[in-house]
């Protein structure tokens, strides 16, 4: 049989004619169809997820109520619960991958002890390379192919934003997202961040500056992404008019060197520089500004608040003031040292601040799953989170204040403190009594 060009063309024309032309031609009426269609589906989901719980809550205590809530049990069996997450395992954001490895170690230990409510916790962590279009793919895979129950501690703001609507529409809880975007606090019941958001954190840092550095000139140096821009917003709010802003400089995440930006600020008269930068770049700029013989007071975000940054900065970090919400491994506190030992026993040579926060995040998930108990489904999980698990005085072993989550308050860790790196002692100096509950700084 000979295939002439005509045959090909006919075959293709047939395809062209039948499928897309019809489709696209009708594409315009789906404007209305869509409006009608989507709410209907949402309504069904709402009915299944809400489970009529609020009305019954009056008769029983919220804790007992959990057992009666029906809902989507995708990814849950009696023996196992499948939880998804995405992290960057390659590229510049791969430094955070330690967090994921650390909470995996934590739950390995939990699983060895029989799991939670008889279930083993199984994580599927996908690599998205911190690229939002990859994230869309991997989350689709987690949700549609692996059929995970929920997402836990997924990394990143741009990545999270890329899948936010999808995750919401699918009804998959995405809990304790590892990102400080303020957006998570008001994205519906199934979405929640974990750490203090960068706007709040920036505000705390800014207020500290307004108090201690009143009347001086300051500049802001930030990474040109969500993290940096949120931080900048908070800083400006916190500082108010107490200091004079001489300039705001930005840099790209993969920049080799950001000294030039800092020098511009210093030469413009800045005595204080507030930074929203990642550890390596921050350490680099500290070093080279010091080598240039310039002196300036540095304020920096919690991201850089760790002993490992100080190591990279080779002594130039002395006196740097940062915000923080969790202790550093250099903290002599026995609880902290116990955690450090745990990770050392699990083959981590030098546990870092990432391991500490991973422990804190893991404790939150363990608490939530424990409270939800035997009847685990997406509705009961959210119900337990908003009404039972984080209501009273449950506190992570490494934090100083209880975590509070309610229906209206989707900001888990809010207590922050200001700390100053003490190079001679090799640790942060801070005053536990002076912990700022950023509840008060809430907008």
């Amino acid at each position, binding site marked *: 049989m000979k295939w002439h060009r005509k045959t090909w063309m006919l075959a293709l024309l047939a395809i062209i004619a039948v499928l897309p032309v019809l489709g696209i031609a009708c594409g315009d009426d789906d404007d209305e169809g869509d409006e009608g269609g989507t709410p209907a589906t949402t309504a069904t989901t709402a009915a299944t997820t809400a489970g009529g719980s609020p009305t019954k809550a009056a008769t029983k205590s919220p804790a007992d109520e959990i057992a009666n809530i029906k809902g989507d049990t995708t990814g849950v069996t009696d023996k196992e619960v499948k939880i998804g997450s995405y992290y960057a395992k390659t590229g510049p954001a791969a430094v955070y991958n*330690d967090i994921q490895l650390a909470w995996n170690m934590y739950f390995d230990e939990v699983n060895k002890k029989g799991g939670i409510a008889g279930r083993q916790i199984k994580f599927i962590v996908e690599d998205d390379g911190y690229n939002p279009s990859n994230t869309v793919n991997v989350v689709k895979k987690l949700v549609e192919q692996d059929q995970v129950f929920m997402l836990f501690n997924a990394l990143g703001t741009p990545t999270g934003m890329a899948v936010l609507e999808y995750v919401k529409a699918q009804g998959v809880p995405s809990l304790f997202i590892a990102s400080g975007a303020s957006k998570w606090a008001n994205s519906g019941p199934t979405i929640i961040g974990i750490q203090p958001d960068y706007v709040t954190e920036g505000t705390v840092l800014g207020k500290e500056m307004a108090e201690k550095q009143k009347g001086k000139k300051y500049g802001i140096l930030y990474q*040109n992404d969500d993290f940096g821009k949120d931080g900048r917003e908070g800083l400006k709010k916190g500082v108010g008019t107490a200091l004079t802003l001489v300039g705001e400089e930005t840099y790209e995440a993969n920049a*080799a*060197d950001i000294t*030039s930006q800092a*020098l511009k600020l210093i030469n413009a008269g800045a005595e204080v520089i507030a930074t929203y930068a990642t550890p390596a770049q921050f350490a680099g700029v500290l070093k*080279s500004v010091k*080598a240039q013989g310039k002196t300036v007071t540095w304020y920096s975000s919690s991201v850089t608040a760790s002993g490992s940054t100080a190591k990279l900065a080779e002594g130039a970090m002395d006196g740097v003031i940062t915000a923080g919400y969790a202790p550093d491994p250099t903290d002599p506190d026995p609880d902290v040292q116990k955690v450090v030992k745990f990770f050392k026993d699990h083959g981590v040579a030098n546990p870092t601040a990432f391991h500490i926060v991973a422990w804190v995040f893991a404790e939150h998930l363990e608490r939530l799953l424990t409270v939800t108990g035997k009847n685990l489904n997406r509705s009961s999980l959210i119900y337990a989170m908003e009404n039972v698990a984080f209501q009273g005085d449950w506190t992570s072993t490494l934090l100083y204040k209880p975590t509070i989550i309610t229906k209206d308050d989707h900001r888990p860790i809010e207590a922050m403190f200001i700390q100053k790196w003490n190079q001679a002692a090799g640790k942060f100096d801070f005053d536990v009594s002076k912990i700022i509950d950023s509840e008060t700084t809430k907008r």
Partner: protein
Amino acid sequence: METFFDQLAIGASTGALYALLALALVFIFRATDIVNFAQGEMAMFNTYIGWSISRPLSFSWIPFLSIERHINILNWHPEVFGIPLFLGSESDGSTRLGYLLIVIGTVAIAFVMGGLIERLIIRPSEGKNLLNAVIVTLGIFAIVNSIANWRYGPVPQNYPAPFKGNAVDFGLFKLGQHSLFALIVGVAMMFAIYVFFQRTKLGLAVRAAALNPQASELMGINTGQMLTLGWSLAAAIGCLAGMLVAPSVAGISPNLMLGVLLYAFAAAVLGGLDSALGAVVGGLAVGIGQTMVVQYIGSEWSDIVAFGLIIGILMVKPTGIFGSPVVKKV
């Protein structure tokens, strides 16, 4: 004006780093006609090797030899400008190899590894489409990056700088000691490359092998050896670059070169891919250009203007500032 000179100094020190890697790119382009995307990653990996051998020494693996006795045997600590050349004692009592030993050792390893890569990976893809060779270097890029990520982890590690003191004051501006060192090494390397290619018989043979392999063989040149040598030397130069980049960007990580490689490419192309002088000038131009844009236009424009200018300059001079024109053959 002080601002201007401050920025000039910072730009020059970043530019020196770009120039160092750009030199390696130029070298391999002249020696093999290949644009090597893996150059930065090879440098990164070799720098990691340097990092491993720069950690405190442990002699426990030598039986019947106490640490003290062993150190006594090697207790010869010559120093140049305060840098231990062969062995140095740290403040914490541990012993480390001196900077010179680290450099020699690492460069030697890089030399061998570059040759091995050429022999085992590049050679089988040789003589085919030039694009194939480029894709193979992309493959090496991926392999090296992920092995480094796996062996050493993504967290940046501290890397020793030979000169740690305060900046040297030149009156108008100050230049960090390390940056000055990098600049000097860069310029020295530029001359070395110039002399190698223009003044030595071996360098001439390497160039000939890249230009016309068949004719070179008819001259009695073992072109295979020349290619291997080209890769080895380029790897060694890249390795030196990596060892100088790592201390200035606060530590070594698998992404050490991501922020440098593209600028180094830009620098090499700007200067002309086959000119060592062009690499240095291009590197400094890109580095200083970036800081000037930060200072006088705005930091978010720095890369936009830098890369935009490169496109603009290529429009005027299609083979870079010092590049020799491309010969079109019928």
